[in-house]
Every structure is written in structure tokens, then in C-alpha cells.
């Protein structure tokens, strides 16, 4: 039963490739593809997760989503986080990494970072080393609404009354975004630094010789050359903007409060699943979240596409 293509050589070659792919592919299918498909299936049922009996209810869960004000509040929050958090993080990270790598002016004919930049590089990366929950717990103390809270006591020295960072409905989400930025910046400083290190120094030196000041150096030379890295960072951060679960869970009042002011989709999925036992509806939310993330990623990659600069 031999087929023409299945020569011993081909078997060896494809067998070799398959043997390498089999394990990761199996893991990918078992732990990623199949749960996602199951979520899609569950989203069409009224499963409560504690009994094997459930009925298929068609798109009822999805129509329910449209009338769910908490769901829309969460979507709006993701929108705001998506607009603000990646932009602020990237701007700060670019600024820092420029300073750390090129902002110090010339020394021995080479562009260097500001004084002490190797120290700052390590310090900026600290938040990345901490688990998100630890960051949350840390900021519980920092943002404590009483006079004795770390941030509020610092403000107190300047005569500012204690601020309810997480208890004012108008302020709470911004505070959470702030923590996300604080936590994210370090990683992107390192990422962009690596991007800048990959650019040949001669380019910067040539520009400097031609009389480019730091602004020109940054906007005309550095930014275009690390644009690919920025684009990757943007997608990462955008996807992170659809998460925020752990920080909101740990930091917010009453998990997503006050008055739904900070709730996010993963938190609502968690609540629907483990508090209300609506596995079907939670899965529908999950499916909606997947589509939001995919749409965002596809859009970003399309919109930010630029010609790659070879060097």
C-alpha cells in the first residue's frame, strides 16, 4: 500500500518534523483549542456547572448580554483602559528607554544613556518581577484612603486632604489604570531598550554629526527604527487592557465597585461562574471577550503596518 510520496526519505523527514511538533501541538490543542471550543459550546447552553444536565438555548445568552448593563459597563471600561493605558505606558517607556540608552549625550564619541542608567534599568524592571497580586496588595497600602495611606500621607505633607483613590466612582478606574501603567512600564523600557540596542550606533552618530538635537534624534531616527517593537508592545498592552482582572479583584471596592465603576469582563465572567453558577452565560461573555481581543489585535496590526526599515 505504498504511495509514491511516502518514500523512506519522506517518512524520515516528516516523521522528524512531526515528532517535534506532536507534543506542543497536543498541548496546544488540549489546553487551548479544546477549552475554547468548549466555551463556545457552553455559551449556547444553560449549564450551571454543577450538573451534567443542561439544555441548548441557542443564542439566548448572547441576547441577554445586550441587555446587561454590567456587561456594557465592563466593555466601556475596557474601551477607556484601551485608549489610555497602552498609550501612556508606551510614551513613558519610550521616554525612559531613550534616556537610558541615548539621552546622555556623547561620551568618547558614543551616544550613551543618562548618568546611572544601568541602575535605573534594573529598578524599572522591578514591578515586572512582582506577581500582579503582589502589586495589588502593595497598592492597597499605597492607595489606602485614610490619612495614613502611603500616598495620602505624602500628600498630607503638602496639606492635601486624603484622596479616596479607589472609593470615588469617578476616580477609581483611573487609579487602576495608573497602577497598570506603573506595573507595565518597566517591561516596555526593557523591550524598547533592546529595540534601540539593535539599531546600529552609526546611524545615531551620523545623525548627531549632522547636528540633530535630542528631539530630532528621537522623533526622526529612534522612533521609526523601533516602530516594529512599539507595534508589538501596543498589541501586548492592548491585550492586557482586556484583562486587568487581578488588579480590579484585589484593589476595587466590592470587586468592581463602587457602583460598577471599575468592573471588567474577566471579573464579571468570574462572578457569573463562581458566584452565580451561570456557566453558560459566563461562557458567552468569554466568547464576546475573545472577539473583542481578536478584533483589536487584527485592527492594530493592520493600522500600524508600515514598511520595515532594513539596516
Amino acid at each position, binding site marked *: 500500500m505504498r504511495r509514491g510520496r511516502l518514500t523512506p526519505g519522506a517518512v524520515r523527514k516528516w516523521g522528524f518534523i512531526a515528532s517535534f511538533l506532536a507534543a506542543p501541538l497536543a498541548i496546544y490543542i488540549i489546553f487551548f483549542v479544546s477549552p475554547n471550543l468548549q466555551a463556545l459550546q457552553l455559551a449556547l447552553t444553560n449549564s450551571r456547572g454543577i450538573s451534567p444536565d443542561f439544555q441548548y438555548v441557542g443564542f439566548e445568552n448572547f441576547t441577554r448580554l445586550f441587555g446587561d448593563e454590567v456587561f456594557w459597563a465592563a466593555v466601556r471600561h475596557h474601551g477607556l483602559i484601551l485608549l489610555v493605558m497602552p498609550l501612556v505606558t508606551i510614551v513613558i517607556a519610550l521616554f525612559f528607554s531613550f534616556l537610558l540608552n541615548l539621552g546622555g549625550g556623547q561620551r568618547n564619541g558614543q551616544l550613551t544613556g543618562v548618568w546611572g542608567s544601568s541602575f535605573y534599568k534594573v529598578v524599572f524592571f522591578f514591578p515586572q518581577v512582582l506577581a500582579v497580586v503582589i502589586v495589588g496588595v502593595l497598592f492597597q497600602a499605597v492607595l489606602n*484612603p485614610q490619612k495614613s495611606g502611603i500616598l495620602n500621607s505624602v500628600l498630607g505633607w503638602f496639606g492635601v486632604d486624603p484622596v479616596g483613590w479607589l472609593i470615588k466612582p469617578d476616580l477609581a478606574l483611573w487609579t487602576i489604570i495608573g497602577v497598570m501603567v506603573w506595573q507595565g512600564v518597566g517591561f516596555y523600557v526593557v523591550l524598547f531598550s533592546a529595540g534601540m540596542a539593535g539599531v546600529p550606533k552609526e546611524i545615531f552618530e551620523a545623525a548627531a554629526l549632522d547636528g540633530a538635537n535630542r528631539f530630532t534624534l528621537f522623533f526622526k531616527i529612534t522612533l521609526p527604527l523601533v516602530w516594529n517593537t512599539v507595534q508589538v508592545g501596543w498589541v501586548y498592552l492592548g491585550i492586557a487592557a482586556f484583562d486587568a482582572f487581578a488588579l480590579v479583584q484585589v484593589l476595587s471596592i466590592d470587586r468592581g*465597585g*463602587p457602583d*460598577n465603576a471599575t468592573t471588567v469582563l474577566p471579573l464579571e465572567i468570574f462572578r457569573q461562574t463562581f458566584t452565580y*453558577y451561570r456557566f453558560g452565560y459566563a461562557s458567552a461573555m468569554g466568547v464576546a471577550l475573545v472577539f473583542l481581543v481578536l478584533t483589536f489585535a487584527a485592527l492594530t496590526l493592520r493600522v500600524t503596518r508600515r514598511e520595515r526599515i532594513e539596516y
Partner: protein
Amino acid sequence: MTITPRDITRRQLLARVGLTALVAGPFLSACATGGGGSQEAAPSAAAPSAGGASASANNPFNVKADAPLEVVIFKGGYSDEYATQSHEPLYKKAFPGATIKHQGIQTIGQTLTPRFAGGDVPDVVNNSGTDNLDGGALINAGQLLDLTPLFEAPSVDDPTKKVKDVIVPGTIESGLGGDPAKPYTLNYVYTAYGLWYDAKLFEKEGWTPPKTFDEFKTFAEAAKAKNIVPFGYAGKNASYYAYWMILISAAKIGGNKILLDIDNLADNAWNNDAVKQAAAAWAEIGKYMDPAYEGLIHTEVQTQQNQGKVAFYPSGSWLEAEQAKDTPEGFEYAMVPTPSVTAADQMPYEAIRAAAAEGFIVPSKAKNAAGGLEYLRQMLSKQGARDFTEKTKSLTVVIGATEGLTLSPGLTSVAAAQTAAGTNVVTFSSFEGWYKELETELRKQTNALMFGRISAEEFATKMQEAADKTKADESIIKQTRNV
């Protein structure tokens, strides 16, 4: 995740969807899964066992004197010494010929589920802890014995009184399950809810706990003048402590019917004047709170009370034990009922919300089911209850069982409040466990009310909307209660 008395893992939740009560919120789940009809009628324990002696006051269940008894106790916070050193000896005293097999374990569910499946079950089970049995499922499968005969039997200490008359009102109701509802669980530990304060601080300042909300406001001004927050709770994770107070006040104004209506999703239950008045009264007190409290967790506020910064804190009778490690010298916990709202309140000031927890069950297929009932009857004797309190520092549902015991100051005040309340007991709220969506909304709106973002009127309107939404939602299984 911050730890609250009610923060429990998914696994626990799954286990508790059934009927076992939580420490901080008993009755949450009396019969959440008990919607369907039971498949098998539980056999009546009152039927005389073959060859047994005729029923008597000393042996109302016709226990065979030499029949072995198997007891399984959850060895958790209360340990199991109360069983091995008191309840089991009490049983042996009554039936010297019986041998008792005792098992003190933590994984009640894992250990006993296969035994239920195989039909080889113990005679008494203390169904508690993280890994407990799903009571609702057991009821539906006809695995639990209806405990009505126990409550109708003569009590150990006074044969002229039935068991149901020597225990705190509401205990039997707390163990109801199935459809039609029957008492399948004996909840043994007594939990009272009210306002907690430092008796020593009040003594020093010359304050007395307010009995009306007018007095409460006067007191609030006095406390404020001393830089003490008159009333505080933790909005971040324990807003339900505050809504308990609002619900208690509503029940005091309009009677327990208000709370039953809320549980039964009766039309306009939340729009009742009693609810609005209660919410308005508490919102007035909320104004004296530091707004920062909305961002604190329960342990932070409890610690502030220990530091003398908060006068009244709403909680249940576990508070003293919970804070034992942090309570400074010279701090003396005491509990008082919530103040009366109007002069026309249906329940007196002394009324407290009290509830029973820590479930005991008798499997219907137990070889010595009658002995199981008798064991529970012995537990409900004054001796059994007193020993339990001595060993666990917790009160039981047995009335007057603490006579002659030296109780901690907090427990003493709870016992005093219990005696003063008599039959004026504010009922528990089943919707907390039945309708989690509604409960979540109540937490949210309670914070909004107490921290001044909405009025009492809006509070009632929003809660009514949420209740109507729950009622209209066909995917939520509805439950009702009459008592």
C-alpha cells in the same frame, strides 16, 4: 483576594450550594438545590425498631440499648473533643451497653460520599467544613432522615418539655430543606447579630448604648466630639455586615414578614415603608462614618475598633473569637441589639437577629438511626450544650445552657441579649444564598446608601428593580419559605 468570613473557594461553594450553613451567614443555602421532589420518602424514625422497648421519656426513639453507634465529627475550628469527651459519654451513660465508634475527620464529603453510595453510613454526621457533603443532593436522593421526631420528643432535662421548646426559636427552620420542606439538619451553634462595642470604653466615657435611632444620633454627636467614629463597617469587602443591620431594622419596624416577603420576591417587598425607614435611619448614621471606610476591609475596621477609633461595629457573635489575637488588654467586647427606629416598631428593642449554624444530620439508611436521633437529643441537653460552650467558646441553640459557666465578656453579652430577646427573633434572610445576583446588588447599593451616594428612596427603588429582575428571570430557580 481578601479573606472575609464568607470568602470561600469555588470548591466550598459547590459543596455548600446544598444546605450547610456558613459561619458568617447561616442559612444562606438552606435548600438551594432542593427544587425537585424527593425521589424517595425518607423513612420515619418514629417507627419502633424491631424488638425495641416501648417508647418512653427516657428513650423516645426506642433505641436498642446495645446497638452500636457510629459518629462522624468534623474536626475543624471546634475540634472534636466536645464529642469524645462530652456528647458520646452522655450517650453511653444513657445506654451503657452501646459501643460508640468515633471518627473525627476534615474531609467529610470525600470520606462519606462513597459510603452513602454504598449504603453503609454512619448514624450521626457533623456535616461541616470545606469538604462537606452536598446536603441538597442528599435530601433529593432520600438519604437524610427527617428530624421532626427529634424536635417533637421530650427533652432530656425536662420530659414535660419537648426538644423544640428548649432550643432557640428559628433553629428548626434553619435546617429546613427539600420540597415539601422538612427539617433535615440540626444546626447546633447559635450566632447572634448586633452592634459590637468596647464596654470598657463606654464605661470610661459614661456612654450607654442607644436604644432608639434618636439616641443613636445624640450618641454619634458625642462620639464625634471625642474624635471617635460612632459607627463603622468595611465597605470594601464586608458591606453585607451593614445590610444585615438595615434588614434587622426593617424587620423590627414591620415584623419578620418584611424579610419573608423579600426572600419570596413578593411584589414591592423592597418598596415597603419599613425598608425605606430602616434604610433612611442607617443612612443618617452612615453620615458620621469616615468615607475612607468604604475602601477598607473588615479586619482593618475591626482593628480600628480595637484601637478605640470606632464605637459600634456591626457583626455576629464570632467577632470576639476572630479578634482574640488583636484585642488589647482592657478591651471588653459586648453586643447590643440594633436601636428601634420608630415608637410603633412591631418588634421591641431587645429583638436580635439570631441564627443557628453547624449542621448535624442523621442518614436515613443508618443502621442505628434511632440512636442517631438520641445522640442529637443528648447534644441538646443542658449538659451537652454547656460542655460544648466550654470547649469551643461558642454558644449553642440550647436555651439557658450557660448557667454556671464563666463566659467571655462578649459571649456573656450575647447570652444576655439572647435571654432578653426571648421569642423576639429577627429571622435570617434566605435570599442571600438563593439569589446571589440580588445579594450582589444589595452589597453595591448598601455602600451607595451608607456612603451617601443615593437616598433611602433610591435604595428601595434600585433593590426593587433588582428583585423584579430576579423574579422575571426564568433561568433562576425560585424558592419560597413560610417561616
